[in-house]
């Protein structure tokens, strides 16, 4: 435990030094300040809300509908933009560990390689998770105070966002230990992130494909790769308190993350530095 704490603390220290943590924290704080001071919500008789931004009045809508809709917008922005930023920022943290001159000293310590890499993985995950929780919990409290709507769906959405980052981080880890390059790690992770919304249109694309093998190939990629797009739909359903049709995107993405992380650890174990 002592060693895990040291590795996590080191990741936080590096995130602070590289201004990664403060960059995220600043963006989240700006969002919260926007919600707190710029967006005014007037609730009339506890049922109808009028939202105004920079003094411009919008239309009046039932507060029970308005709050989850607004929360889902925030969750989607965080899910797509926040993830892209988190991947961009985290790639360097993973690659830094395997830098020549640094890795030799780490490996000479009485710590297993799995422990070393998992310590960095957990530390990196916690850096991003702390900011996600800060933004979502902060937004949830502000909405709750302004509207007295305290639905937990928005809070639960933070777990999905952290989960998808954990999966993307496993890709960064694998590419990082394979090629020591944060640039390649970012490229591959972004490619997967941007490919999955296309794959999510599987049913439509299948109709356009003429051969069976190409349809099978499409299905293969759809089922194997993480389903960021489908999970964003699940998040929206959870926030809007609507039933989720299928949890397959979540568990198949989890399997992908576990397999990729395992491959990263396996490669790290076998690699000579």
């Amino acid at each position, binding site marked *: 435990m*002592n*060693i895990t704490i040291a590795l996590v*603390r080191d990741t936080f220290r*590096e995130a602070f*030094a590289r201004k990664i943590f403060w960059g995220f924290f600043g963006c989240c704080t700006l969002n919260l300040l926007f919600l707190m001071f710029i967006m005014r919500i007037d609730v009339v008789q506890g049922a109808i809300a009028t939202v105004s931004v920079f003094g411009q009045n919008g239309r009046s809508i039932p507060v029970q509908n308005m709050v989850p809709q607004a929360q889902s917008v925030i969750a989607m922005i965080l899910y797509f933009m926040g993830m892209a930023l988190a991947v961009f920022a985290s790639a360097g943290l993973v690659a830094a560990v395997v830098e020549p*001159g640094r890795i030799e000293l780490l490996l000479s*310590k009485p710590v*297993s390689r799995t422990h070393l890499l998992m310590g960095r993985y957990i530390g990196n995950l916690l850096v991003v998770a702390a900011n996600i929780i800060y933004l979502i919990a902060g937004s949830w409290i502000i909405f709750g105070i302004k509207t007295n709507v305290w639905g937990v769906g928005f809070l639960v959405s933070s777990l999905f966002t952290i989960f998808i980052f954990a999966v993307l981080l496993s890709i960064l880890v694998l590419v990082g230990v394979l090629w020591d390059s944060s640039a390649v790690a970012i490229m591959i992770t972004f490619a997967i992130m941007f490919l999955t919304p296309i794959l999510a249109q599987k049913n439509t694309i299948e109709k356009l494909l003429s051969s069976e093998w190409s349809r099978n190939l499409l299905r293969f990629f759809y089922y194997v790769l993480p389903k960021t797009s489908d999970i964003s739909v699940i998040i929206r359903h959870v926030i809007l308190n609507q039933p989720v049709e299928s949890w397959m995107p979540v568990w198949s993405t989890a399997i992908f993350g576990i397999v990729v992380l395992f491959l990263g650890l396996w490669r790290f174990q076998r690699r*000579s530095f």
Partner: protein
Amino acid sequence: MPDHAIETEGLTKVFRASFSGRELRACDNISIRVPVGSTFGLLGPNGAGKTTFVKMLLSCTHPTAGRALVFGQDSRHPAARRPIGYLPENHRFPTYMTGRDMLDFYGALSGMDAAARHKRIPEVLNLVGLDDRAHNLRLGKYSKGMLQRVGLAQAIIHGPKLLVLDEPGDGVDPVGRKHIREILHSLEQQGVTIFLNSHLLSEVELFCREVAIIQKGRLALSGRVDELTAGSGYRIESEHVPEALETELRSRARSFISNNGTLQVLFASRTDANQAVDLLRSNGCEVESLARTRSTLEDVFMKTVEGPEAAKQ
């Protein structure tokens, strides 16, 4: 308690190029034994395979064949590395840490608890000659010499029984090197085994009792420094030697130096030296000194690496 701090058996590392498949045999069947409590120097020209050997010893690089034992345990097991302190060559310490943070981090990885680290950190930082101001200074602001010192501090913080140092004097001024040598001597007296990988032959000769020389990935020579440097010649020094006698002695000598009336003659054998003494005495010359000669470690190194001719130059 095993007799050897380090024991390698047929340690071999072959690197293969990804595309061409070309092989590079960085270490080839190296077997070395380093007794507990000794000071051992590993020497070799650039690219000889010294760093690869050290990396295999610490399990940073996986051997293609053979194995490395540290105090009788296979170094691939994390627990086997607990008694090791290591200072790498070309280290890249995290520049965002202060000296204190760095020792705290590596101390924790070495298995020290928080209380032990808290007590030990200022002690070792002071021991390696870093003042209070440097304790809380970021490593990014450290000079090369200070980085070597803090690197040594992280290597000894947990009280290792084996210290593996890769070019410890690199970037350190002569005063600093002497200080580091004194620290190492004090550790040696406490029974710590010291394994030194260095290009500075004079440093190794001053400090190590045993050496091994690696050449092209193979173990070329190993033994005690005093035995390896013990020469077979005899040096006689005399003054005011008559010219005819000097010529006679020169013809028998391996080498000579004549300067301001003082003659130093080096003979290859004891018989030649005894005959020279007889000649000098019979001609009424005083023998100022007579001593067995020693080679320097550099002579031994050059002879091993480049052949006997190189040592004579």
